[in-house]
């Protein structure tokens, strides 16, 4: 695997990535450093009881009355999802863009196999999302150092929660990767990737609000993501981790197979 095939899309998207990483970092820093403003569990309980159920459901399965649960919800914050999703989409769609613009012709008319090219593009997307998430983790740890109430969460557990987040995004990115491997247009890939992430989020959200839809939550990758557990220091169910890992690996393998067999025609 030539490092330049991984680094080239990262270099191209460096300013976008920097902006997204700064955004996620700012969000994490703001969330941790303002925690004490809410006045602890009792005040939060009163605040939450006045909120409509649909708003409270954004917190997912997290118990917001605990510090770990409160910060578990920050991973589902629309801005956090936008920053991480933006990084994933900006990079994972590069492969389809290469086909669309005929840049792939120049790369594949060299001693570069299709599998090498596609895998490099996935790794670039994974690294880009990882960099954004790492920036979020660092900002969280910085906010924790500044706010005594957040220090209840151990640094190792914070890192574990962000690693869990990376696993979730590896799975989401791999589904976008399948779309990129099948498509000859970046726009189509963006639509499929955003569509998958949005649908997955919606299934999980509606499943919490409406009892008959509850079993459908298992079809959503967000169902298997419980960052509050990781922040509290208890290991998430192994099945949840395995599911996300399987989606990530299966997506990559399916994408590689599809890209290997398809015609490269922009």
């Amino acid at each position, binding site marked *: 695997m030539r490092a330049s095939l991984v680094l*080239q899309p990262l270099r191209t998207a460096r300013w976008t990535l920097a902006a997204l990483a700064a955004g996620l970092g700012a969000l994490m820093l703001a969330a941790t450093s303002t925690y004490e403003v809410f006045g602890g569990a009792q005040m939060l309980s009163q605040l939450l009881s006045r909120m409509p159920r649909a708003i409270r459901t954004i917190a997912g399965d997290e118990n917001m009355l605990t510090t770990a649960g409160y910060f578990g919800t920050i991973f589902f914050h629309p801005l956090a999802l936008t920053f991480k999703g933006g990084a994933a989409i900006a990079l994972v769609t590069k492969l389809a863009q290469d086909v669309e613009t*005929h840049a792939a*012709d*120049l790369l594949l*008319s*060299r*001693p570069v196999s299709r599998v090498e090219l596609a895998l490099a593009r996935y790794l670039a997307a994974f690294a880009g999302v990882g960099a954004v998430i790492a920036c979020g983790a660092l900002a969280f740890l910085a906010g924790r150092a500044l706010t005594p109430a957040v220090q209840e969460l151990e640094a190792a557990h914070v890192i574990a929660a962000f690693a869990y987040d990376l696993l979730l995004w590896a799975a989401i990115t791999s589904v976008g990767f399948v779309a990129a491997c099948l498509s000859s247009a970046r726009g189509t890939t963006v639509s499929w990737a955003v569509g998958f992430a949005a649908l997955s989020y919606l299934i999980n959200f509606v499943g919490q609000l409406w009892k008959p839809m509850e079993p459908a939550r298992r079809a959503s990758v967000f169902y298997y993501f419980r960052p509050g557990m990781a922040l509290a220091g208890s290991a998430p169910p192994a099945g949840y981790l395995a599911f996300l890992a399987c989606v990530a690996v299966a997506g990559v393998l399916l994408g590689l197979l599809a890209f290997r067999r398809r*015609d490269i025609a922009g």
Partner: protein
Amino acid sequence: MAPATVIEARELTKRYGRRRGIEGVSFSVQAGETFGFLGPNGAGKTTTIRLLLGLLWPTSGSVSAFGLPPGPEAMARVGYVPGDLGFYEQMTGAALLEHLAGLQRDPPRLRGDLCARFELSQADLAAPVRAYSRGMRQKLALVQAFQHDPDLLVLDEPTEGLDPLMRERLYELLRQTAAQGKTVFLSSHVLPEVERVCERVAMVREGRLIVEETVASLRARMLRRMEVVFSAPVDLEALRVTGVVNVQADGSRVTLLIRGSPVPALKALLRHPVEDLVFERARLEEIFLEHYRPEPGR
């Protein structure tokens, strides 16, 4: 010893659903040969090239380069100038050349010479590709294809956007490349350039190969026009010698249509009072037009 076969296509077929790509195309290109691949737009030239490079999968048949199926091993010896230039626009020319060279197994030993030949200065190369004109992009495409000194050049419309001076430099480069025993596969619809640099040509029409022959033998089979002005009346029947298929007179001006060698006609003319004579080479363009003229009823 017979020269090695560099490209071999056997009954190569590509269909895009119901749409035609190419159908049963077979040809071979030998080492050291400059091979022209001709056809109008949409005839199947680019499809054939994309099959050769492994960018498309054939519906049936096969194609190989250096005896290898399309893939990294074969591509290590290939330089490619695409018809559609897909460059990373935000990269500088120098960074793009470096990036592409980094993917080759051989170092870019010819880059300096090529940049000088095509007048790509350091300042040009320091600019982002998005600022390049069409001609500069084409020069960059040529440099990236030739820079690692490949054994096979696959060129899809390589003179597109080049000015006449740069075209001449490319022709010179192609001649030097062939003289070094390298193979050139040149796809074009610019017939004079194919005629200048290629020894052998293939023509595709509606996805099928209709001609595969040397340029010289194609010319030999063509009708050629000889216009003669006589200073005195002549017996036209005396001019109907071997090779002359038609004789037409317009006063003292006589037009002969000749197929094959002109020597018998020239010998016949020596016996008459010739005042002026014009005899043009058969041009590839005429051969091309003869093959691509719409069939009656179509």
